[in-house]
């Protein structure tokens, strides 16, 4: 198993695209997009986030990446509803760059805190 990732975005396409990009370098990592509102519009959905968190959690924990501030707030609300599980953490990272770095770290079998740090340290390599 490995740490899972959830990509929370206002855009369903953006979340799916980040998953597509990060999956290239992390074939065995569970990457779940949570993009757009319930009715397919631009925005975030608590329900999509909560079900993505459920899907991504294989036991080793989940790192959540977000686009704008309101996605952060939706993700934090979801965590609050779930009783702030210790094994689900938000990364304070640029979405695309953080997701790729975190996915690579998760693929290597790194622990939750290491995957989170990989996201947060993400700079675009050459």
């Amino acid at each position, binding site marked *: 198993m490995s740490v899972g990732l959830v990509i929370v975005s206002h855009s369903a396409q953006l979340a799916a695209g980040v998953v597509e990009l990060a999956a290239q370098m992390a074939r065995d990592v569970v990457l779940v997009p949570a993009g757009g509102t*319930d009715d397919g519009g631009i*925005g*975030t959905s*608590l329900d999509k986030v909560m079900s993505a968190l459920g899907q991504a959690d294989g036991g080793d924990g989940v790192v959540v990446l977000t686009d*704008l*501030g*309101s996605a952060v707030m*939706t993700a934090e609300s979801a965590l609050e509803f779930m009783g702030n599980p210790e094994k689900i953490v938000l990364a304070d990272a640029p979405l695309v760059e953080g997701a790729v770095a975190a996915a690579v770290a998760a693929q290597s079998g790194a622990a939750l805190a290491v995957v989170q740090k990989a996201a947060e340290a993400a700079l675009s390599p050459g």
Partner: protein
Amino acid sequence: MDAAWAIDWLRRSAAVVAEHRVALSELDRAIGDGDHGENLDRGFTAILAKLDEEAPPTPGAAFKMAAMTLISKVGGAAGPLYGTAFLRAGTAVGDAAALDSALLVAALTAARDGVVARGKAESGDKTMIDAWTPAVDAAAAADRSAPAAVLAAAAEAAEAGAVATDPLIARKGRASYLGERSMGHRDPGAASSALILRAAADAAAAAAPAGASGTGA
């Protein structure tokens, strides 16, 4: 202020949000993404549907239902912010059948603290906090008056707070991308907060005979 008042508050909020839907989105178009009115209208329309299904038995139950619905349906920053506000208010009042002035002040304070915890904004950042904090202060100052007067004081202060966001520079939320260009525009969330707190006061005024006084529920 009992469950009937809480339900009336939510229904009045839905009505006033629907009425000001376009205006709120226009405020948001100037310094954000132009969806604040639609976002809130979607959320409160869903609240109306829930109220039609089942009447919450206590104010706390009404607040918690509103919280869940807003967080789920709004889709923008206002969802988790108002959702957390109503959730904390619901927790603050527990299963009290009716809220006296002290409990109302506690509920408003918890709501404001919830917005702060969720959004990490400070006063003066040009957010809904700039309506909520004056409202909480005014309510606390009026806590020896009747509930309707407490809510009227809160609503009035929220309205003044919303107007006072006009000259501010946004430091949180989408408007913060605009930096100084956010000056000269009213914060949409502060404006909607004033409308919703006015709805609370109106529901209380309709429930309590005019001129009633004291601190009872």
